[in-house]
């Protein structure tokens, strides 16, 4: 499986058309919270049985978390536990995790989804309240500490939620839902400090 995956690596040296990320540069500030679109990142959906976890962790340079609702991060690369045998790997340094997985033979499935997701940052003292406008999870620091990650919902759309700091979240959603998610978060932000 690795060979086919390797071929879809990021573009090489040849001149390529421009990348037009969805909602690029959009940001909204409200009292206590800022909502903004984050730059593109490399992402894979990683599926693997337990036996493959050590080899994959080594290849990726980050230990794949085994606990529900948790994540692990190292060197700009974050592994989010999404379900049994399922992780979302996000790399913000431009290093394609797909290529790293392609090097190992341990049983796994790595699928490139860099363009599938759009990331939105929600940051500020009112960040949790903003997300809670549409996400039913308990976002207190006790229940959802820094590093907590969960595939959940925001309003009528699925999201993956990652707490990056006590007062900051990374919201990942599918590309075509990003307008909805961003608009909902923007509207919620305006009420969050009240």
């Amino acid at each position: 499986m690795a060979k086919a995956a390797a071929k879809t690596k990021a573009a090489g040296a040849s001149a390529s058309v421009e990348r037009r990320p969805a909602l690029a540069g959009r940001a909204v500030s409200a009292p206590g919270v800022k909502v903004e679109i984050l730059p593109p990142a490399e992402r894979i959906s990683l599926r693997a049985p337990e036996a493959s976890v050590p080899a994959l962790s080594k290849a990726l340079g980050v230990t794949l978390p085994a606990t529900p609702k948790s994540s692990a991060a190292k060197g700009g690369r974050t592994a989010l536990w999404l379900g049994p045998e399922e992780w979302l790997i996000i790399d913000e340094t431009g290093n394609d995790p797909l290529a790293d997985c392609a090097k190992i033979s341990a049983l796994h499935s790595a699928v490139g989804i860099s363009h599938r997701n759009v990331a939105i940052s929600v940051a500020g003292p009112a960040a949790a309240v903003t997300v809670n406008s549409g996400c039913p999870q308990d976002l207190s620091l006790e229940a959802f500490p820094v590093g907590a990650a969960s595939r959940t919902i925001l309003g009528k759309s699925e999201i993956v939620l990652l707490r990056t700091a006590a007062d900051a979240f990374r919201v990942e959603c599918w590309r075509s839902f990003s307008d909805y998610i961003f608009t909902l978060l923007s509207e919620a932000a305006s009420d969050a400090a009240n």
Partner: protein
Amino acid sequence: MNASFRISGAGRLNQAKTASFSFDGKSYLGTEGDTLASALLANGVHLVGRSFKYHRPRGFLSAGAEEPNALVQIVRDDARKTPNVRATVQELYDGLTANSQNRWPSLAFDVGAVNDIASPMFSAGFYYKTFMWPKSAWLNFYEPKIRSAAGLGVSPDRPDPDHYAARYAHCDVLVLGGGAAGIAAALAAAETGVRVILADEQAEFGGSLRFESGAKIEGENGFDWAQAAIAKLKALDNVRVLSRTTAFGYYAQNFVGLVERVSDHLKSPGRELARERLWQVRAKRVVLATGAIERHMVFANNDRPGIMLASAARAYLNHYGVAVGRNVGIYTANDSAYAAAIDLRKAGVNIAAIVDLRDNPSGPVIDEARGLGIEINFGRAVVSAGGKLRVSSMTVQPKNGGGERTIAVDAILMSAGWTPSVHLFSQSRGKVAFNEETRRFVPGAYAQDCMSVGACNGTDGLDATIDEAYAAGAQAARDAGGKDSSGKMGQGARPKVDGSESWSRGMLGAAPGAGPGTTVKAFVDFQNDVTAKDIRQAVHEGMHSIEHVKRFTTNGMATDQGKTSNMHGLAIAAETLGKPIPQVGLTTFRAPYTPVTFGSIVGHARGALFDPTRRTATHGWAAAQGAVFEDVGQWKRAWYFPKAGEDMHAAVNRECVTVRKAAGLFDASTLGKIEVVGPDAAKFMELLYTNPWEKLEPGRCRYGIMLREDGFIYDDGVVGRLAPDRFHVTTTTGGAPRVMHHMEDYLQTEFPHLNVWLTSITEQWAVIAVQGPSARKIIEPLVEGIDMSDEALPHMSVREGKICGVPTRLFRMSFTGERGFEVNVPADYGEAVWEALWAEGQKHGATAYGTETMHVLRAEKGYIIVGQDTDGTVTPNDAGLDWAVGKKKTDFVGIRGMMRADLVAKSRKQLVGLKTKDPKVVLEEGAQIVEDPKQSIPMKMIGHVTSSYWSENCGRSIALALVAGGRDRMGQTLYVPMPNGTIEVEVTGMVFVDEKGERLNG
């Protein structure tokens, strides 16, 4: 206008701070902190509404959320006219405009009041009995007439300009009700450090401490103590205090819905403020401290304006500084009304007389009233009230009959006792239990992790209430996992009660003079105009269950949900039935506790946020080209690209011809895409699809059909094998999520032994279909690393490489019958690659085309669309797709279903082509087909049209249809009867263009 009933020095409002408002066009002056009710009463206005059925004049019954009568329309502007606002909870703001409802032409002279005179006609069950015959009149006459006559207030007719916020919250202890009990519980829970939410519907906390002048806590007046305690709680990080917040619904697993009124009390709320905020709270423990509601006395004309609950008069006096009259009568069956008489007397209001149904009650309040020189009449009843637009007298009689005496009054305060507010407890599925001694329903068996404290639990007296509530708050915190850091949790700071008012029992049901055999209008339910007589009549007419009595009389079914009426109604029904109350039972309490606006339920989900609108990467380009879009599920898809002067028909004709003559570009990004990866990927595909996959070589594609277990077609799509262990599966646009779930479901439940994983890649790839004889010429210059010759890249193959310098999965496939490609590129590159292809396409005369042209072109080739040409009852054989079912396969989802006798029967409907005899006539999709148009109606229908278009390429109309035994009818003439005449059609094959398929390589 002079607020002449405001008593200087009384109440807690700053009387120097005035606010002007208008009611029914007349201007008044109120005081900041007033409710609309207290402000009107300060101006001597009692008449505020007309009743629902009899249009009787009505005033304020209460000073709170239980108000059944004083419903008004609050008008902010043309778009904001809120009907059915309870004047007793609407806070006054400067400039408030309110209007009365349910009256015409005016409140004082209402034509509808003729119903009152004709009331013998409108007794219980009137609607059920009267509007039965003739049956046909219901729909066209009775229902519209009743609907227009019914209802209170007028709905706003413009979009709501306000916005509504929503929030989910979690806490350890949720305390509902912010009176003495709720505050004590919250204090106890808060000191442990657990997360506490305390909510109360009023603007200020304190509950009945608002009027209980005798309550003293920690040496302070009870209300002042409450304010200090709330300030203390607000200062704590672990406590959220919500005022103006009603818990309206108690759902499963301690999930409680609350609505916070954010800005209805403000003069001109800024745009940044939501009107209301919905809180959906999940609590580990809930403490119910919802208090009790006073009941009225059920006697003749007990609804006249000026007759109200004793506790309400106390609230108006002790909190708002307003006397509800100058010469007040009291009618009671318990002690608490005495306190009202004493407070009013001390404020200088004359108490005409206290009429007490009890024979020889005694106690401190009675002694105090006597000491103040108030006339007290024991063992007597008020049998009738005089006056119409305002009460003018009360007629008193010994309760067992005797001489009547009429006493002039301008207000009557009544109290039949207190009903514990078990609404939320009951909503939590807890079972209420009847306490025989105190004659009230109190919480019995609990269904959820909650506790009731104080008056709602039947606990009497402030000291006992605080005791119970404080202990419960601490217990709830412990149960929720709170740590006892101080080591003396629940012992330390229990508020000390220094003064308390006694509560005593009252009575249930009709008072003397309104008992069995009487026909007076003694109201049980004010809002629905239900009298004691109506309840008895319902029982006499055979309604023996309280649920039937309720529905027959509509007792307790108004927007106040019978807060004041349920117990009286139940007692009267029980008495008439000759059964004890618990045997008759209480009706079920349902959410919402008080009316909730649609806005707060809808929250953010309106306008652009009503539902996600999904757009593809090329949406902006298509919009700039003037594309017309259609909704396909949540997606916006380009439907057609009209040029200047073109209508849809002309645009689609041009697009269709251009694709077959030169080429066309089409955005196919919305098609579902699933990457199936793992060593067992082919095995899994074999099980999910009818087709064989094991032998499909990497780099090749196959059209796959997926069935449900019952053998019917579920979805279809082209699948490319990228590697031995990797498939790129496509699904229909609409089927994308459910196909993914279907596959995942089978993988997890039926085939968990397979090493294969599924990932949705629908949104990873933008898909640009380039179709037509010039397709290759358009793509080739932009592609790197892929040999595009027919030998290297034959029809139905897939290669990975680069286009415009970015990665691509390039499919050679066709949904038009022309040489075709589908260029997959990572979504963020979609628009730029489209533009590059478009620029190349321009050199070859290509067009952009939309979904309509796509539909026509595929129909010309007889390619089906699952969901249009199939409807969940079509097998592969029905659709002429037997070739796609692996004959040697022994297992796949649906294989057994497909063999069922019904599914292999000869007479099944089969997909065929239809040509109209007149080529210009385009059939209507869904039209029914018959063999003999001359047969009598109902005709035997043998099929229907599934797809029908004008085909410019064929120069005629074309259609696909499901027809019984269709494939054996080739050449037969069938008929499509339509309202304007019968259309003759000929049964044909499904392929209308290039039957041999040569154009795929043309």
